[in-house]
Each structure stands twice: as structure tokens, then as C-alpha cells.
């Protein structure tokens, strides 16, 4: 068994259990509203992360490493990564994408998110610059 299958029988049993649970969910989903849209989102989530988002940010990171020295890249990389994380999570109000749906239920549209995100981004890069300057000054004194 182990030689042909490649793992213990327990491995097979547990996987069959997962696939059975998944099949049960698939049957429930089939009856739900816009079932095909759920499947589409599930597949899009996989493809967009693994084949778009990850190559995109690792590509930018490589470019940044070529742009500056390895010792200094983190002063750019850290604030950029944090700012990008905030944009990824909070893009609906930052880019004004949820204005209509938000205003419909809450009465007023979300306001000032782009400005506050830019402010946080400015502070992140500003703090990074201060640390860079402080370390550069300390290194200059030491030498």
C-alpha cells in the first residue's frame, strides 16, 4: 500500500473524508443563490494570489533590490510593504469602491479614507527615513 499509494492508509482515509465533506458543501452550494459566482470567486482567489499578486510584489521587490544596495533596501521595503498591506485590506473606501453600497445602508458615504491612508503612508516612510538618518549618523560617528 505504502509503496504504490505513497503514504499510509490513514492518509488516504483522511483525504477521502475531506473530499466527502467538500462534496457535501458543493451540493449545498449548488442550491444557493449565484452558485457559479461562488465557484468563480473560489478559483479566482487561487489564481489571483498565486499567479498575479505574488509575482507582482516579488517582482517589485526584485526591482527595488536592483535600485539600491542590499543594506538599504529595507528602508524602502518595510514602509512600502506596510502601506501596500493597508491598501490591500482597505481598498474599498480608499479607492471609493464601496461608496454606493456603504451610503445606501449607513446614510453617508465613507469619507477621507484615501487622505488618511496617504497620511499613514507618509508617516511610515518618514519614520523609516528618520531611522535611516539616525543610523547613518551613528555609523559616521563610529568611523
Amino acid at each position: 500500500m505504502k509503496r504504490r499509494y505513497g503514504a499510509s492508509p490513514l492518509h488516504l482515509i483522511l483525504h477521502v473524508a475531506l473530499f466527502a465533506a467538500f462534496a457535501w458543501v458543493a451540493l449545498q452550494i449548488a442550491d444557493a443563490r449565484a452558485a457559479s459566482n461562488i465557484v468563480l470567486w473560489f478559483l479566482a482567489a487561487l489564481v489571483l494570489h498565486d499567479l498575479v499578486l505574488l509575482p507582482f510584489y516579488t517582482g517589485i521587490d526584485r526591482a527595488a533590490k536592483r535600485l539600491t544596495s542590499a543594506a538599504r533596501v529595507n528602508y524602502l521595503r518595510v514602509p512600502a510593504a506596510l502601506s501596500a498591506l493597508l491598501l490591500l485590506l482597505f481598498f474599498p473606501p480608499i479607492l471609493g469602491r464601496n461608496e454606493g453600497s456603504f451610503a445606501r445602508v449607513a446614510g453617508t458615504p465613507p469619507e477621507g479614507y484615501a487622505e488618511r491612508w496617504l497620511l499613514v503612508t507618509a508617516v511610515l516612510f518618514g519614520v523609516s527615513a528618520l531611522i535611516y538618518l539616525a543610523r547613518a549618523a551613528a555609523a559616521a560617528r563610529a568611523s
Partner: protein
Amino acid sequence: MRAPWPADPPPGPFRGTFWRSPLRGPWLTAFLGTLLLALTSVVILTGFLSHAAYEPDLGRNAIVPRDGDLPGLLPFDWPTSPSWLYAFTQGLHVTVGFVAVPFLLAKLWSVIPRLFAWPPVASPAQALERIAIALLVGSALFQFATGVLNAQIYYPFKFNFVVAHYYGAIVFTASLLLHVLVKLPTIRHAYRERGVLQPLRANLASTEPEPYDPDGGLAPEHPDKPTLSRRGLLGLTAGGGALVAVMLGGQSIGGPLRKLSLLAPRREGFPVNKTAKAAEITAEMTGDGWRLELIHDGRKTRLTRADLAGMEQRRESLPIACVEGWSTTQSWSGVRLADLAKAAGADPENVTCLVESLQPAGVLRTATLNGGQVRDDRSLLALQVNGADLSLDHGYPARIIVPALPGVHNTKWVARMTFS
């Protein structure tokens, strides 16, 4: 039988030499996985608790069709104490869910070479494992994406969020459990080889790649020189989580943190979940003609707002907490639900209550309260908040406020209460 693919990997990411980060390796993936598991456990647990808090077995509460639901997991009714219970569990669900995203991204980054493993399938066991991983990663990304969008009231999808997020949670939980079981030996091996925390001691200068292992597929064959230490990467990930917590958590925790949560969807002190206009409530419906109808055993009692104001009033400071993760504590006053049960001729000690709103449409225009919720002395049909009549958007002429009840079940613009 010959494999349908060439023995040598095609150029690009399928080649071991393509992946060069010196930080990737079994220890890093095990450590990120451990942190992510801790966070997602909180999110999963509080998520299923929220499902239970909606009491889907009562009345018309079920949003996920009842014949397509798992059997109730809680052996007891959703409690009313502590009154901040739902604010706490749901605040955790949403806030920790957001905070987990950088850990999820880092974890997926750490294992990306495995997606391009060559040969694509080496054994039947590995084929099943790859399908299980696709379910895990797909459901994880689906859950985080839909949850993050719903918390910001953004619906670029056509499906019902609650239904899809619930079934997504079942797939995610099951595939995560299996993944942890399958990977347990790998995790233990990585910790035994390198120590659990040992690799965090290394600064950039002393950061070494993990040993190359073609079968593991994580540590690179030709690592670059490191530009970041492992603790640097983990610090960035955790720092991202902390930043997200500050940007969002205030809408749940309240106080001065609310102002500091610059990107939280609900930054105001007393948010309106759904306006009267959105619920299609008009001034005529709530004007002098409004009556509260109490029903018990086919007997109807009709009360004006003045009748209600003439009953014994009680003032309670109670939180209201939305499934979207925000909460706020306000001082509500009104009539005890138990007194209304008595007025309807029901035994307040042992009765559930179907509350119906004036709202003409919507899944959440009705909610059924369990016996404990009707019985609790702090459960009110509120007429006022903070000493003034409710505004139309907060549910005038009268709304339900019950301790630890999910926000939307605190029905606004109440029209009818049926005790049974």
C-alpha cells in the same frame, strides 16, 4: 506507465534554481504556519460562535437553509451574560481576521515553490494532497477576501455573503485540520532540527539558508545573499498585523482608540447600521398611527407609544455589536421584554418571542429571541437612548435591545411581537 510530462522541468518557476530567497525553508514555513494557525483558530471559533449566536434553529432566524446546515454545535441557548459577549467574540472575529492577512500572505509566500514542484504528481498520495491544498488555499483566500469586503460593506459578488462565508468556513476548517495532521511530522522535524525559536536569534549577518532538500522543495538550491533576517521578516509580518489592528480595532474596542482607527469602516461613536431610508421606513409608518401589536395564543393586544411610555421604564447600559465587527455601548431605556410578555398574557419565564419590524422586506426584518433573552431583566423594548427619544435611524418608535445579542437581531422599528 509513462508520466504525461517530461522528466526534466520546463524552464522558469518549475526549476529548483528559480527560487532564490535564502529565508525559505521548513523552519520558516513551520513557524509562520504555527502563528497563522493560532490566529485562524480564533477566527474559526468566533465565526462558528457567531453562527450559533443567530440561533438559526429558532423561528425564521436561519439564513443558511436549515436542511443544509450542520447540527447545532452549542449544547445551550446563546446566553445574555456577559452583555459584551457578542461584542467580544465578533470584534475578535473581524479584527483578528484582518490581522491574520499578513501572516497568510507570508505563509503562502514561503511555500510558493511547492506550487511549481516537478514532477507535478509523484504518487497517488501526493496527488490527493495537492487537491487538498488547493481546497485549503482557495477556501482560505475566499474566506479572507469575502470577510474583508463584507466588513466594509462592499459587494462586488452576486452570492449571499452569509451563505457563501459559512460554507467556505466549513471547507476551510476541514482542509486546515487535515493539513495540520498531514504536516505535523514535518513541523516537528523542523522544530527538532532548528529549535522552535533558535533561528530568530540570528541577525542579518548571521542569517544562513536552511539546508537544501530537493524532496522538501522549500529551501532553495542556489540561495541569494540575505537582505533580511528571519526575525526581520517575522517582525515585518507581525508589525503589519499590529498596524492593521490599530487601523481597525478601535471600532470594536471603542474609547480613544476609535479615533486612532483611521481606516476602520465605522469610526463614529454611535454608528447607524441601516438607515430608515434604506429599510424603506417612512414617517407615516412610525407616526401617531403606529401601534405595537402583542400576540399570544391568538390573542392580540395593541399598545400606543404613550401606553408603552406609561409602563415601568428601565434604563440599561448595553453594547450593541454588529456582525461586521464594530460595537458601541449606549444607555437605553424602555420596557422590559418580560413585562411585555406579561402584558400579552404569556408566562415571561418560559416563552420565545418573534419580533417583526415595520420593514417591508429583507431577511433580517424578523428575529426570534430565545427564552433566556426574553426573561433577562436587561432585555428591553427601548423607546429612548441616552435620555432622548430614539432617532428614526436608530429605530423610532421602539427597538429591541438584548444583552449579547447580534446587532441585527436587535430589531428596529418594531411592529409586532409574538410570544409562544
